[in-house]
């Protein structure tokens, strides 16, 4: 499933060729549209020639429809596509500054390249100016760093903002662009060709009609088809994502979880997927109870996606079934460093048992109800919840009265340490493939 992971191409000729080819198409299309001519670009701002608006927004909506279509067909994994993070105010202020530069200099950084390539002296001068501008920025940004990194909303898209499905948003954007083009054509007649408003023909040009009907049809089809659900998306993912599940590479032995919790270089998050009742009876130290369905909603998913490469997330359920289902859904959304605790809580309590006066084994059933019956809610107040701790002095010893002295402590700590379990290391911390736009 696209996009392809090009990180292993880095530094090779192939990498240069891929990006060079993309750039070739970019430059070719820009020049073809007339972006190498500063007069054509500047005429945009006097409403005489709306080429800039037409080319740019046609490109945006064509690409948007193709992207939504490819995602809908399961050809493209949008979670691995670079979406420019929203830094709202720096973006707006930067845009306002650029607008001034645009109308003074008559180019933008991309168009100045094709102007230079076609030997326009003004393009070369502008390019030199741009290099000076980016240098000045690098020299001065340190003095207002706080503003530069302010209003960071991360990966934030129009469908999320408006609360609409992707297909509907794309259709709205297409309609808006078409209206804009039509308005642009009317303006060209008045300001470009000097027609009076009364004589302006309201008929869109033939190319616009053609483009418009094509885009509308395509975006309605894309909207009707919709986007794959998280579970469907997982099925569409390639073998490299599914294989760890089949080979049990995602199931981490509890002892490895304990070891990682002790590792100060790793940030461990444990998400407990059981219901509140079971969670209150017993849960792992530091675990957070989450509703599997709520995890997929924008807010929580965003937090998971924003975790750094040094963070690892474990899912835990009663057994493994619930955790595996959630693992697939989250993996389908592109969450990295995600693992399932082997055997769930039931298995955890086998390895790090609670005192017998508190919990007793009732059944061993992966999908069924909890395999341990607790006398009362212990939360994370048992040594079993914190096997990584060296001492149990801070824990209450619930069984001191009930348990005979001969039996001693059942749990670890105090008298006996937990056994040192042998396990194969499964967790491999991976930083996300550094997908970045050319302007990132």
């Amino acid at each position: 499933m696209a996009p392809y992971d090009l990180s292993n191409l880095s530094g090779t000729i192939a990498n240069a060729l891929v990006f060079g080819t993309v750039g070739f198409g970019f430059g070719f299309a820009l020049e073809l549209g007339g972006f190498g001519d500063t007069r054509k670009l500047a005429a945009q701002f006097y409403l005489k020639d709306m080429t800039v608006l037409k080319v740019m927004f046609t490109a945006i909506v064509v690409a948007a429809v193709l992207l939504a279509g490819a995602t809908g067909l399961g050809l493209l994994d949008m979670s691995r596509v670079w979406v420019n993070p929203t830094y709202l105010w720096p973006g707006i202020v930067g845009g306002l500054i650029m607008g001034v530069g645009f109308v003074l200099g008559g180019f933008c950084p991309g168009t100045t390249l094709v102007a230079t390539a076609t030997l326009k002296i003004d393009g070369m001068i502008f390019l030199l100016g741009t290099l000076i501008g980016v240098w000045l920025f690098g020299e001065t940004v340190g003095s207002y760093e706080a503003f530069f990194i302010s209003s960071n909303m991360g990966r934030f898209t129009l469908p999320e903002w408006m609360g609409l499905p992707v297909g509907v948003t794309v259709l709205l954007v297409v309609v808006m662009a078409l209206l804009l083009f039509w308005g642009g054509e009317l303006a060209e007649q008045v300001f470009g060709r000097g027609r009076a408003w009364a004589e302006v023909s309201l008929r869109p040009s033939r190319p616009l009609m053609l483009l418009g009907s094509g885009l509308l049809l395509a975006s309605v089809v894309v909207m009707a088809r919709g986007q794959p659900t998280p579970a469907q998306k997982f099925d569409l993912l390639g073998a490299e994502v599914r294989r760890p599940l089949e080979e049990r590479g995602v199931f981490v032995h509890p002892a490895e979880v304990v070891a990682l919790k002790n590792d100060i270089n790793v940030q461990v998050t444990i998400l407990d997927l059981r219901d509140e009742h079971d969670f209150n009876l017993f849960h792992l130290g530091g675990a957070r109870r989450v509703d599997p369905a709520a995890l997929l909603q924008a807010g929580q998913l965003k937090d998971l996606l924003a975790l750094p490469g040094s963070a690892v997330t474990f899912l835990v359920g009663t057994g493994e079934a619930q955790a595996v289902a959630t693992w697939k859904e989250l993996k389908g959304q592109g969450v990295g460093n995600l693992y399932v605790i082997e055997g769930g809580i039931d298995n955890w309590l086998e390895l790090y048992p609670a005192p017998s006066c508190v919990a007793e084994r009732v059944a061993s059933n992966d999908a069924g109800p909890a395999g341990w019956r607790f006398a009362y809610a212990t939360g994370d107040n048992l040594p079993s919840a914190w096997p990584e701790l060296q001492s149990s002095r801070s824990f209450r010893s619930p069984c001191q009265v009930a348990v005979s002295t001969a039996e001693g402590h059942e749990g670890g700590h105090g008298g006996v340490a937990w056994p040192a379990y042998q396990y194969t290391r499964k967790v491999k911390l991976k930083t996300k493939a550094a997908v970045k736009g050319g302007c990132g």
Partner: protein
Amino acid sequence: MATKKEPRPYANPYLAGTLLGVVLFLSFYATGGGLGASAALSHIQTGVLDWFAPAHVDRTAYFAEMAGGSRNTWDYSGVYMLVGALLGGLASGLLNRRVKLELRKGPNVSNRTRVVFALLGGAVMGYGARLARGCTSGQALSGGAVLSVGSWAFALSIFASAYAVAWFVRRLWN
């Protein structure tokens, strides 16, 4: 034969736009990222600065991120894209007989004025593009296609500001 030297007219904007949109989609499809130019310019500028003042590059956070220490700012995907864009522009220019050494400007300004304003405009543009984390291509075009809220806000502010200023500098272009 003389007429053969005449530059061909530019393509219909909707056609050129569709082509650009397909290129943009293919870029996302193949590489996971969009198009862009200003980041590559920033890398090139930092690379040049690194020849003359490597210690200064290492001390300035923004440059050090690209070329600090042993980092190679030139081996950057955007730089290859930039070279490709130059070649693509040249190819289209050659095919359409538009490659010609000339200075384009508004009808009522001198060459000197045009050069000064091109340099000034370029500097303002470059500065703003880095503040906005992308130029018209990297932010407005690429971010617009993936429906990023910030990119749309950015695109609107470029156009708003350019239209607001256009009237004051109308002498430059009309």
